[in-house]
Structure formats: C-alpha cells, structure tokens
C-alpha cells in the first residue's frame, strides 16, 4: 500500500472543481497584480482642506500610534492636534495655505517607525509630528531628508539630542528636570529612602537610566522591583519593597493598567507610605476609574497643569467649547496645541511651509513662547544648540490625587517656581 502523503493538499476531483481551480488561480494572479499596483500607487489618506485658507495646502505628517498601549494618550493628543489644525485653517492657515494632515501609524513598534516616517515624507510631508512612544528610530531618517519634526508628548531627551538631531524638537519638560523637582520635594518633606516599582518596558528602562543617577544623589534607592507590563499581579514585588521599609515609593511605568495595579497594590500593602508616580497617570483620566475607590488617594504625580496659568485657562475654555463642558484637559492637550502653534510660528516666519530647511532655521529662533502648561509665566525657547523647549523647572506641576481618585490638588509640600 502506498504511503499517502497528506500534507496540505486535497485529492483532485471532478471537472467543476478543475474549472474552479483555474478560475481561482486567475483570480489570485489578478489579486497579486492589483496588490502590486497599489504598491506602486501608494495609498494616501487625504486630509480635509481648510475653509478660510484657500491656497495650496501644506502637507504635515503625523505618526500616530493608535494601536499599542500608548493609545491611551496618543488618541487624546491626536484629537487635539486635529482641533488645533482645524482652528488654524479656519483663521487663515499659514499665510493663506491650509494645513493638510496625513496620518501614519507605527503601532508602537520600533521597527515600523522608519517605514512610517518615510511613507509620510513620500506623501509630501514638509513637517512631522510624532505622536507616539517610539519616535527615536525616526531620527536618522528625518536627518537624512531634512524635515523638521516635533516629538509632541515625548519626555525622553533622546529625540532632541545628538546624534541626528538637527531637525528634531521636544517641548515637554525633560526628565532631568523631573529628577531635580523630585529631589527638591523629597528634601522638603524629609524623604531619605525610596523603593521603586517599575515595568519592564523599553521606555521605562530608558527613563530610569536617565533619572536614577540624579535621584541617587539625593536619596538612597533601597530596592528596585520589576514586573512585566502585562502582569496580573504585583503583590510579590510590593511585598519585597515593603520589607525594605522605604520612606516613599516611586512607581515608574507607561501608565494605564500597570500603573493602576501598582498603585492599588501599594495602597493595600503599604497604606501609610507616600506614593510618587513617574507615569503620566495625572494625564490619563480614563485610567482613574480603573483603580479601587480611594486607591489613588495621596498619590503625587509629575504633572504640568496649573489651573492658575492664563494660557492653560484659555486652552481649557477652547477645549470645553469644542468637546463639551468638563472636558478633562490633560498635558497632552496642551502639548498638542503648543506643537501646532510652534509649527505655525516657524512656518510664518519662514514665509511659508514649503521649504523645510527654512522652517527649521526659524524653529531655532523661537524664544519665550508662552506655553499652555506649567506654572504661570512658563515659556519655551529654542536655539541652534537647544532643541528642548523648556526654560527652567516650572514646566512641572506636582499634582496630587484626592480620595475621589482625581488629581485636583497641587501638592502642598513643594512646587517649583519660575526663576
């Protein structure tokens, strides 16, 4: 008896099946050809042209990671970017030229960023907005092609520091400022030993590599516990931290589910220990309800919104008008808004948006731009050597959660002041 080889195939059959096979293979070949012509044609999602701006549109690319866990904040940022662009187009665009947004998505994967960047530039983008956690891999590409780019919500300096940073800019307060503010707060409130709980993501690791050397100069880090970002439980890690009896706990992660789980667990096991958060939990309103009631009470987070800042108030009323009252404004909204305003300023001063190199030169001449976030009077400035906009420490506001799990209060223990 022969050995029947039954791999993936089917035994051949009657005439109708043969006809179907021929037809099917013709279809498959056609599909392949069609697919390759889409490759040739490329696929661009056209944006909406403005209403009052009537000249030829300026294409601006946005790499928006709406797929990975970062979607929790990138979606907010993207919405406000679109709002800001619409507003800009409504009021005449850039010298009469409307801004046309084209969108890409790197899905939070470092390997996809270069491809998405190239794709946006392929579609004619003369300016790039990076609304993603993985903007750094784009640097070689934008350097090579000379397109000014803003890492809209990025706080890790890598994007705007050498090498390959001639065209890249950041506007959030850099991490080194964070550690200075934390040290000052801890000094003022008598914290000498700190235990750290963090996730195992690349971003957190990069963050910690930058922060810890400064932090170690002002406190003793008694223990660092790591857990996977998708962990269902961190009880073991927190129990280990508890055994070292630190004065305060610092939680470092990408936010979202992990942050809430961490805060809840620390609250359960160490209810009297002050908790500090490096995550942008202060700016993620949709995560506050994930926590147990009162689970976030007392958490001090690195935030950037002070309700007394007039620029913040102006932006808040604009957002309320467009999104409904009680829109929970976050630092991401402020970042998005300011990124568009900075871009507009540079383009206008360069006489238009069509020459990326000229726009880039003008970006580096922006000084004392009044930011929509930070303590009152906070400004951003750039120069040929300064690609991170922050001026001083007062872009940072230490916000504290109340028993209602909302960061309503400014931490009374310490706030940085504008020099």
């Amino acid at each position, binding site marked *: 008896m022969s050995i029947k080889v*039954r*791999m*993936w195939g*089917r035994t051949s059959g009657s005439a109708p099946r043969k006809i179907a096979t021929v037809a099917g293979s013709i279809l498959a070949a056609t599909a392949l050809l069609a697919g390759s012509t889409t490759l040739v044609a490329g696929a661009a999602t056209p944006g909406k042209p403005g209403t009052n701006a009537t000249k030829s549109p300026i294409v601006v690319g946005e790499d928006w990671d*709406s*797929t*990975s*866990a970062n*979607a*929790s904040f990138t*979606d907010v940022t993207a919405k406000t970017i679109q709002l800001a662009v619409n507003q800009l187009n409504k009021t005449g665009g850039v010298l009469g030229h409307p801004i046309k947004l084209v969108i890409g998505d790197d899905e939070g994967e470092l390997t996809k960023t270069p491809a998405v960047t190239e794709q946006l530039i392929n579609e004619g983008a003369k300016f790039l907005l990076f609304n993603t956690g993985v903007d750094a891999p784009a640097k070689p590409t934008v350097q090579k092609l000379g397109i000014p780019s803003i890492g809209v919500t990025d706080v890790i300096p890598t994007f705007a520091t050498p090498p390959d940073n001639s065209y890249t800019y950041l506007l959030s307060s850099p991490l080194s400022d964070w550690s200075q503010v934390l040290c000052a707060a801890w000094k003022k409130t008598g914290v000498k030993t700190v235990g750290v709980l963090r996730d*195992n993501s690349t971003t957190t690791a990069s963050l910690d590599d930058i922060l810890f050397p400064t932090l170690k100069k002002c406190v003793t880090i008694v223990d660092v*516990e*790591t*857990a*996977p970002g*998708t*962990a*269902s*439980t961190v*009880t*073991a*890690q927190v*129990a*280990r931290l508890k055994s070292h009896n630190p004065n305060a706990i610092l939680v470092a992660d990408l936010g*979202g*589910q*992990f942050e*809430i*789980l961490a805060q809840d667990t620390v609250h*359960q*096991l160490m209810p009297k220990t002050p908790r500090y958060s490096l995550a942008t939990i202060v700016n993620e309103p*949709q*995560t506050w*309800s*994930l926590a*147990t009631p009162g689970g976030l009470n007392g958490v001090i987070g690195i935030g950037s919104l002070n309700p007394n800042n007039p620029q913040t108030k102006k932006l808040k009323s604009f957002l309320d008008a467009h999104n409904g009252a009680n829109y929970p404004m976050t630092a991401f909204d402020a970042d998005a808004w300011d990124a568009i305003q900075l871009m507009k300023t540079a383009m206008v001063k360069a006489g238009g948006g069509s020459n990326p190199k000229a726009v880039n030169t003008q970006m580096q001449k922006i000084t004392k731009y009044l930011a929509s976030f930070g303590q009152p009077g906070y400004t951003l400035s750039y120069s040929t050597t300064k690609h991170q906009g922050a001026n001083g420490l007062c872009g940072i506001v230490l916000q504290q959660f109340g028993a209602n799990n909302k960061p309503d209060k400014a931490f009374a223990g310490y706030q940085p002041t504008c020099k």
Partner: protein
Amino acid sequence: MDDPQLWISAIQLGCFFGLLALSYYVVLSGTGFFNFAVGPYAMVGGLFTSWLVIEKGFSLWPAVVVALVAAMALAAVTELIVVRPVQNRSGRNQLPALVAVTAVLFAIEQLAGVIFGYTTLPGEQLFNFQAIEIGSAELLPAALELIIVTAVVFISMAIWVRITRTGRLLRAVGDNRDAAALLGLPVNRIRIIAFVLSGLLAGIAGLLFATKAGVNSDAGLTWALDGFLALVIGGTATVWAPLVGGMILGILQVFIPYYLGGPSLSYSLLILAIIFFGLRPQGIFARRVRV
C-alpha cells in the same frame, strides 16, 4: 510566606487559571483538541461587557449576557468553521489545526482591538459589598466573587459530567472519535456542546478576572498560555484537576517573584514546563499520555 495578601493574590490567580484550564479540559475531553482560542474567549467575556457598559451605556446584566453569548458564539464558529473542517482534512496530523486555531486567536484579538479599541477598560464588578479584612490584608469584593463563582462552577461541572448523558458522553467521544461514531454516538453534537461550553466558561473567567487589573484586547495570548499550563500541570483525570493545576500555577506566579525577584518567574516557568511536559505530560492527575 505568611503575608495573607500574597495568598489572596495567589488564590485569585489560581481560580482564574483554574477556570481557563477547565475550559480547555471540556474541549479536550470532548474532541481531543487543545483549543488555544479560550484565551480570547475570556478576553471577549471581560472586554465586551466593560465596553458595552462604559462606551455604550448598557446596564450591567444585559451586557454580561451579551458578552457571554458572544464568547459562546465565537467558540461555536471556531469549531464549525475552522477546527472541524481542518481536522477532517488532516487526519492524524495535529499541525494544521494548531496553526488554524492560533490564526483564530489572532483574528479575535485583532477584531476586538478594531471594535473595542486598544485602551484598557476596567472590569465590571457584579455584586457590590464591602471588602473583608483578613489580618493585615484586604479581600476585595471582586476577589470574593471570583472565588465563589469558581467553586460553584466546578461543583456544577463535576455534577454535570457525572449525572447528565451529555456529560458522560463527553469523554467517550473525545477518547476515540471513530469508535464513538461507529457506536452511533452523536459525535458532532457533542463536539459543538463542548466548544460552546468552553466558550461560556472562559467568558465567565475573563469577566470575573477583569476587575483585578482591567482588560484589553491583547490579553488573549497570555491567558491562553496560562490556562494551557494550568491544565497540563493539573492533568485530565477528573474535573477538579484543572483547578489544582490553576492553583499551583497561581502560587508559583506569586511566590517565585517574591522569593527570587521578578525576572526569575519566566525562567522558572520555562524550566518547569520542560520538566513537566517531558517527564510527566499527563499532569498530576493522570489519565492518559498524549504528548
């Protein structure tokens, strides 16, 4: 080892893994197949409920029903459209069905992301009551729900398998499909019942566990792996074996990081799996060897 909070966490994980393993067990008994897609079924049970309540304003119990029905429907589709045809075609070769079910796992995961979005949603607590203090630890209502429902489910399953005709036929059909068909047993009907039941069990598991740390569309793969491990550790001798396996896995996942630090968990699970699968693939409660 005496911190009650650690034990509560371990038991919570144990119940969840036990339910997932039970879901695997039902399909394995009835069809001889490891249905990796139970991970996504559980994810749908939790995520769909939360999405309906939070984004669409449904009230709680209708949302729960809809989500569980969806999980069961996905399970039925898996069997009817994917597993049965592929298995019919490939006979003794396990691989095509295995690859097909991982494709199903991914399809459900991606579909959930597209429909429900990619952000994590909080789980929905079914009953509202005060947390209970146990020594220095806190037993949250969500954890208590999970424990009680797990107990109820396992007891019911144990009774069902022993008393009802379908329950007793489950094993007969799974052990030897051809013989069962020869005997005139309703093989296809039993298979469908097994799959749908596994969908229900997984959906319940996901729904109850979602309250611990929220749920998002990515959770399917990790949960699928957890449930599989729990089943293999526990074995397939009785309905209770998956629960034992789940508890052991839960304890390992809490206490290994506690004593040896975070990274050691991945290494330990790998070594454990190699040893267990290699030396005792039939699990603690053995019935048959099928490697």
